[in-house]
């Protein structure tokens, strides 16, 4: 029988036995965002429980990371995030000029790591959890043609969206990759700046992610991370403090299950030389605790003698 003889061959679909269906990527929708105020924190998200109900019972429990990835895949297909945060509150109209409207629609990060650090031409920058690519597009212009901007996102649909935006804007120094930021598809010690805008909060094991962030930085590199943390003065709810981490609802709202000082210790334990934290002020959250949108500067080595900003 020849190799091209199809007699008796079965199609791929027929090949799969009952109960072993081929999985497609696109999944049901849900929502995620980062709260800037208590109102937003309580009102803007689709309850994650509702999204979980869409998952067949025999497939539960769904890991938080999978849940988040599916949610963002669905948002990318939907074409709008319908979230609480708007890039117009973070970037100037000049910076947002020429950015495709659908990228702005899908932008859901509330922090502004890009504005907290001065990117220089020629630098290599990676955005962990780049989503539809807004920060990538702005960073690509700042580092110029001699620089390079890499986006990593677990959502294949978001990556496709970001690639399309880079193509439409003619930015050839952008490379967007599907990947899990706990095991990022980025060569070790190859980038100058890691930025991450309200993404680490979605990962239960932040230590693992922070180790990965430190690993891709060159000596002298810095990571600029925005996250929502609990105030040291208003401790996290009992379930979080007891080490049970945050619930799915907290992850969906990007609220990290730890206080500022716990976060600081975690960064230093992940291979960074020093850390600075800046807070945007406190807002009340559940169980009487208070949260703040924090900007974390994690330096691969010691802090620079002259701060970059």
């Amino acid at each position, binding site marked *: 029988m020849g*190799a091209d003889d199809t007699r*008796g*061959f079965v199609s*791929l679909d027929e090949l799969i036995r009952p109960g072993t269906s081929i*999985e497609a990527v696109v999944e049901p929708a849900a929502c995620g965002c980062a709260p800037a105020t208590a109102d937003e924190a309580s009102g803007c998200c689709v309850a994650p429980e509702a999204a979980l109900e869409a998952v067949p019972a025999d497939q539960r429990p769904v890991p938080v990371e999978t849940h988040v990835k599916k949610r963002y895949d669905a948002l990318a297909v939907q074409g709008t995030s319908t979230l609480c945060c708007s890039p117009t509150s973070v970037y100037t109209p000049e910076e947002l000029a020429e950015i495709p409207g659908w990228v702005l629609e899908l932008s859901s990060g509330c922090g502004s790591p890009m504005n907290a650090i001065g990117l220089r031409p020629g630098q290599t920058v990676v955005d962990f959890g780049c989503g539809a690519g807004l920060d990538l597009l702005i960073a690509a212009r700042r580092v110029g043609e001699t620089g390079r901007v890499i986006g990593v996102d*677990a959502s*294949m649909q978001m990556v496709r969206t970001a690639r399309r935006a880079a193509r439409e804007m003619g930015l050839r120094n952008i490379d967007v990759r599907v990947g899990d930021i706990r095991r990022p*598809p*980025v060569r070790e010690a*190859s980038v100058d700046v890691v930025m991450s805008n309200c993404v680490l909060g979605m990962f239960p094991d932040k230590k693992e992610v922070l180790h990965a962030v430190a690993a891709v930085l060159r000596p002298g590199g810095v990571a600029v991370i925005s996250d929502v943390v609990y105030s040291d003065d208003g401790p996290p709810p009992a379930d979080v403090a007891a080490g049970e981490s945050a619930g799915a609802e907290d992850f969906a709202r990007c609220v990290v299950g730890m206080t500022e000082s716990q976060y600081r210790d975690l960064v230093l334990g992940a291979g960074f030389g020093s850390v600075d934290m800046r807070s945007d002020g406190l807002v009340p959250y559940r169980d009487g605790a208070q949260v703040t949108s924090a900007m974390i500067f994690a330096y691969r080595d010691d802090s620079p003698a002259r701060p970059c900003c």
Partner: protein
Amino acid sequence: MFVSPNTVTFSVELPEGTLDPAYLGESGKVSVLANAVSGSMDIVTPAEVAALERVRAGEAVDRELVAGLLERGYVCTDLAEEEARYRAIVDGYFQAIQEAPFQFMFIPSFVCNLACPYCFEGELTTRSPRMDEEMIEAAFDTIPEIQDRHQNSGPPYITLFGGEPLLDTPYQRGAVEQILRGSYDRGYPVTAITNGVALDAYVPMLLKYGCEEVQVSLDGTPRTHDTRRVFRNGRPTFELIERSIDVAADAGIRVLIRVLIDEDSVDDMPRFAEFAQAKGWLDHPKIRLFNGFTKATTFLYVTPDHPEEKRKRMVRGDVKAGLQEAFWRMVQQNPLVDRMLQPDLARIRSAVLEGDRLRPNLQGCSAGTSVVAFDPNGKIYGCPETVGRPQHACGTFYPEFSYAAGYRDPWRHRHVDTVPMCRDCNVKLFCGGGGCPIKAWAANGGDFNTCYCPKVSSITTRVETQLAYLLPMALRRQQEHANRPEGEEGTWEQMTRVGSFPWMS
């Protein structure tokens, strides 16, 4: 007292005078006990074999004889504890699979410039679609998705495969460079499996992107090789491959040379070993040679929906037993071939010669556990031998991603304990369990947790044949050590000797 379910007695024929006659049984053979759970392997006396059988029969046994068997794990006092030890190995294997790296194979095209008569890709290699830039990017995108579906956390590595991946054509250079660059940028180690004809032209590119290892194939001396491994117009290839090996190795790339052996070439190996030695390949730090056997691949053309008679007939035939016998006979008479290939068909070589712990073999084929191949049609395969046969595809990576994790998972997790027939088999830890997964799947109606294996007796024979080959070598080495004057032996040598098989009661 019980005999461990994992204790196996092998019966080995050794040349006269190799061992004290006290070790020989009535048949003139020596008994070797082995237990892959305790990691032990020992030459034992007929009295010890008889003691073991008395334990098995529940009869009283001399305490001194049993003490040695107990210490080495051939008998046990608690079957539940023994089961727990076995279970720990199975669970450890499962955990290791979760964390082990996946090998993602990129096939830019099936085209190959050679016309080897035994090629399993056959007609696929004469005309093929090509992976374009978008497809290559899509394949990289798929890697974390597949890892996610298998909850695999290991670092992926990339292998260039074909057809012939390193064809020296503009298209192929462009595609290969994109794959190499994509791997380098992501920090994925990359290797290539190539016929080696144009490897030298690719060496600068491979070095640029950190490729540290390639595999090439040779069929023996130029005279033998050039009758089989030839260009499509019949032109010879040996000299080109030889040059490529030297260029790559001298540039610092590790070159694994697979020496392909069949009935027609087995007797050519002594001459090829002399050739390799004269070339300096046997001592080159960047070159390693190992043996491969040509085999029948008719199993690629059957699927579970074919009539049973056809399925059983088509999956038959692998490496012929006669070839293995001829191979061992040849190696036995040619120590230089042993030095070149260090053959280890039964996976016991390091336990016998180096004093390593005898390692259990829980999975006979690594393809199912770790291989994902992307072909130029946009399909995903789980075994490099099945690529290009759509009936064996387990998903697509282009234009859209789809993946039958439910089909692949039982394959990936198949081992000696998931196949019911293997679970109760005494020699399972020497065989890997169930034979080729794809053959088992095709032959048994689409169930991976079934068995398609050579008969148990052939597994036993395989181990006994290799023991018959290795034991005289090990005993000779032991004797040489014993005869050396005190003080001439280094610490490492002493350690090796103390730990090494054969342990003898």
